[in-house]
């Protein structure tokens, strides 16, 4: 059974005439790593808000269709309950961190659930270690780099022990080193801890290789949905205007001159290996 099931989802914010989401159908399996991309205003953020119940419980508007996460219909369960199944990390970690230390921020969620002390401790320690924030747990969030702040925000969400982690452009205000740091933590949470990841992201050159699937949205609709290599080489992706990574563009340029690689590479190393394979160079890797 899929962990996220969305059927016929449409949403219009109160006071707006435009549908932010227009008849979205999606299903995501447990343990999948899915990238959600598309131009600004395509509905990515609105979709993320639907997954943890912020829509319809917090943002008023016209809601149609159904969102079921971990077996819970989001209309029938409140945000605090859903937050134990779906964690949402925002673009700007400053909006999410507000305590005097990282540790206090991470403990905030479980404390509010009224969990026993030893359980809170256990969860906080686990979340700090899983995000590589253990050493920095006594620091104030504002003393940290952007990448560290975003990792602290992820830890705070993880302490709720969600099965699904939704990240809404978590790297867009980070420098490349910070972005790589956050993406590698997210990949580790997915691979080692089996957490389902839904990541909205513009930096496909860094993120595409991590994903099982790329979903492209445009004007509130899902327009592409498939393996990264397939989606990134499709005509539609170009029309919508998402940033196609240079490795993929080079793959296409080579194909245009008759050099067909056996599959679409997503990292420079993968491309080099495929070229070496085609050129008949013995595997020296």
């Amino acid at each position, binding site marked *: 059974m899929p962990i996220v099931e969305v059927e016929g989802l449409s949403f219009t914010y109160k006071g707006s005439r435009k549908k932010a989401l227009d008849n979205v159908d999606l299903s995501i399996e447990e343990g999948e790593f899915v990238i959600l991309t598309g*131009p*600004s205003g395509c509905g990515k953020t609105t979709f993320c808000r639907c997954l943890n119940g912020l829509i319809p419980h917090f943002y008023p508007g016209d809601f149609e269709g159904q969102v079921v996460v971990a077996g819970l219909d989001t209309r029938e369960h409140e945000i605090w309950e859903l937050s134990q199944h779906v964690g949402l990390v925002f*673009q*700007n970690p400053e909006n999410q961190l507000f305590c005097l230390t990282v540790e206090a921020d991470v403990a905030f969620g479980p404390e509010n659930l009224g969990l026993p002390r030893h359980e809170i401790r256990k969860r906080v320690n686990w979340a700090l270690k899983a995000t590589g924030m253990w050493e920095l747990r006594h620091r104030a969030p504002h003393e940290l*780099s*952007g990448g560290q702040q975003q990792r602290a925000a992820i830890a705070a969400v993880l302490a709720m022990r969600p099965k699904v982690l939704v990240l809404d*452009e978590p790297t*867009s*205000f980070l*420098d*490349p*080193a*910070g972005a*790589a740091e956050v993406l590698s933590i997210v990949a580790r949470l997915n691979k080692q801890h089996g957490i389902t990841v839904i990541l909205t992201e*513009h930096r496909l*050159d*860094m993120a595409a290789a991590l994903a099982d699937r790329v979903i492209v949205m445009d004007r509130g609709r899902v327009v592409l949905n498939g393996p990264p290599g397939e989606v990134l080489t499709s005509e539609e992706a170009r029309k919508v*205007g*998402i*940033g196609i*990574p*240079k*490795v993929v*563009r*080079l793959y296409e*340029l*080579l194909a245009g*001159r008759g*050099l067909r690689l056996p599959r679409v590479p997503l990292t*420079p*190393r993968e*491309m*080099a*290996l495929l*070229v*070496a394979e*085609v*050129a*008949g*160079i013995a595997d*020296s*890797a």
Partner: protein
Amino acid sequence: MPIVLEDVWYSYPNGVEALRGVSLTIGDRDFVVIMGPNGAGKTTLVKTFNGLVKPTRGHVLVDGVDTRRATVAELARRVGLVFQNPDHQLFCETVEEEIAFALRNFGFTEEEVRKRVDWALRAFGLEEYRDTSPLALSGGEKKRVAIASVLVWEPKYLVLDEPTLGQDYAQKEKLRKLINELLERASVVMVSHDIEFIVDFRPRPRVVLLAGGRVLAEGRAEELLTDLELLKKASLVRPQVPEILDCLCDLGLKVRTDVLDLLEARDIILSAVGAGR
């Protein structure tokens, strides 16, 4: 006449030495990108261009005028600085007022103000937000308002601190077009981490790598942005094209690696594979 920095040092009142002997010239219709790790002094450096930061040692000359002998208001007409964080810049009640603010201050006629504001709203895809409060916009939209509100008075030197932050692909390509147009009559200095965005400019900007308040290297993008050791020192990730070529070298294919252009990389790979077959 250019902007000239002569051995510029700057210490913040708390004692942090942000700039340690920077010498640099920004010429007429020059195109320069400043890159480097967080805390390298990039933002402090560009703030010396319009006198917001006055050097504790050394000189900054803007068109021959020492910034210590001019007010920020005088310098701003020539040097337009767009901050990294739009929240530090936006304060008017509507997007339209925000974009018109500096124009009125500089004494443009009302007719000219209207013309320029309309142009800017169109150029940045902000027409629907004309009467909206800048504070109600998304991060990416605020950023565009901040850039528009400076670009609109056509400063001779436009300085953009991380202009692509939070922008999607389409907006970045629009920004590229605007910068290219602007370069026909002005100088553009960009602080940026967005290496793949930078390498797609034609012609490419001159690159200044800054680290620890000093110029680590200055030169052609093809040279600096393909040099792995140098990029590591500047906390930058090497662009994908030279990275691919370098991986191919590791696998025993003899190819050049100081390449940023996709078509050039394609031809290099085709001939290397042809030779190997």
